[in-house]
């Protein structure tokens, strides 16, 4: 608690913009600028600009880098061509989720984007595994040397294009390229990825160039800064997991509907035996979407009930700015998780009616390539 909060290379920029700054996973981050709902709706309608520099950026090099990542993560990194990315998980030996992350393959290195809250744990985890397997691989934490900036929304491509010398239209979803920017001596890894359900980009740039890139993007009137508040409502509408809520060390990938990123056929990896057993059995509970009428807002850990019997708990809940009513993700047991089931959620001693709905709540508007 007494550790000073870390500041991203853009912290002073956020303060100058009048952002409300809050602690988040050890970092001082912008919660909102003009207001959460306005920022959320602007991202869906035009383009939102996000400082994601609190997220961990790790680079893995060495002859055994690929082997190390294949053994550490659940998805199949052999399927990645240079310039491609995949969503993946790190599980423990019990098959429970320790981390969710993005794995990028480049011709000269592998790069990971990991959660701020798990960064040091992932570095330790990879180093231990490398030592145990005698992998010749080096894990470098570049979080403090680099910034990560997101541009998300239907106007993100036209807004970003003037900063990038090469055409962006050819960059496919879940692909990334190193590009020189039109800002002198600045280059960036430009990735067509995001956490909003919209088309968009994530840029890795040198920490010292972050403010310049940020300010150039804000010169475009289609672009407005967006804080962590709207980042959370956007990702929940898009049905995307947030570590600590939908994913924890109590959750299996199958319960969280992430069986598609667990490749049991790829060979040995941490948690594989437990995951194979878990896959054979029925998951006892499942992550579902819950939709509510206008009223009290469900929050994390609120009990979920059917006919007065407890059948689960809310993972994340909020008011959906796009849909104008409350929504939640929840872990629900057995057949109570079937779409269309009527449930209730206990909010401050009252039972709010809720219906199980398919995810995402708001359809994705990303570029084709399919999801993940």
């Amino acid at each position: 608690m007494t550790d000073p909060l870390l500041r991203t290379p853009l912290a002073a920029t956020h303060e100058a913009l009048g952002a409300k700054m809050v602690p988040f996973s050890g970092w001082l981050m912008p919660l909102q600028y003009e207001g959460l709902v306005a920022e959320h709706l602007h991202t869906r309608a035009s383009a939102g600009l996000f400082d994601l520099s609190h997220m961990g950026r790790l680079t893995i090099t060495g002859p055994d880098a690929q082997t190390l990542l294949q053994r550490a993560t659940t998805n199949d990194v052999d399927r990645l061509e240079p310039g491609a990315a995949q969503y993946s998980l790190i599980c423990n030996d019990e098959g429970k989720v320790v981390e969710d992350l993005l794995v990028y393959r480049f011709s000269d290195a592998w790069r990971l984007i990991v959660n701020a809250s798990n960064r040091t744990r992932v570095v330790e985890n990879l180093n231990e595994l490398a030592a145990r397997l005698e992998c010749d691989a080096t894990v470098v934490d570049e979080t403090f040397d680099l910034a990560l900036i997101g541009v998300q929304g239907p106007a993100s491509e036209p807004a970003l294009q003037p900063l990038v010398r090469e055409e962006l239209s050819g960059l496919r979803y879940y692909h990334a390229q190193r590009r020189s920017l039109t800002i002198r001596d600045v280059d960036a890894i430009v990735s067509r990825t995001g956490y909003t359900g919209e088309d968009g980009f994530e840029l890795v740039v040198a920490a010292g160039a972050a403010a310049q890139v940020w300010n150039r993007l804000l010169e475009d009137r289609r672009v407005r800064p967006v804080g962590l508040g709207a980042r959370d409502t956007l990702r929940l509408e898009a049905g995307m997991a947030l570590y600590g809520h939908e994913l924890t060390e109590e959750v299996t990938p199958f319960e969280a509907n992430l069986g598609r990123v667990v490749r049991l056929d790829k060979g040995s990896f941490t948690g594989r035996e437990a995951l194979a057993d878990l896959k054979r059995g029925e998951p006892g509970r499942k992550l579902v979407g819950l939709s509510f009428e206008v009223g009290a807002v469900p929050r994390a850990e609120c009990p979920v009930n059917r006919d007065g019997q407890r059948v689960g708990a809310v993972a994340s809940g909020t008011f959906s700015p796009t849909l104008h009513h409350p929504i939640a993700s929840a872990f629900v047991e057995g057949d109570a998780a079937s779409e269309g089931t009527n449930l209730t959620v206990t909010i401050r001693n009252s039972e709010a009616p809720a219906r199980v709905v398919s995810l995402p709540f708001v359809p994705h508007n990303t570029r084709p390539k399919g999801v993940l």
Partner: protein
Amino acid sequence: MSEGTTVPDGRRYTKEHEWALVDGDVIVIGITDFAQHELGDVVYVELPRVGGRVAAFKEFGVVESVKAASDLYSPLTGEVVAVNGDLGEHPELVNESPYDRGWMMRVRAEDLAELDQLMDAQAYRQLIEQG
């Protein structure tokens, strides 16, 4: 933090950022401009039933922003004679008009002397300026 937020004279204020305004023989109660600004977009307001009793410095309802729920504290003791029904359809009135159309309840006070325990506008301004 208090930059640009308004604190009208002629009302009394609580440390929890509610205001109370004498209107004939009842007291109108709401939350301050500072409070709505801190909360952000209000999406739901839970108010007591008309005819119920509220007690000074005790919870009388809940205001929910997108991010979180916050308790509302009554500035004084009495019977609830009206609540603002418009907030059901339009909770954003709390943000747009905290001192007027975003009012929350009207209370018939049991003891008007309770008002003297509350801050006046000048004292409340000092409170929010200190952060």
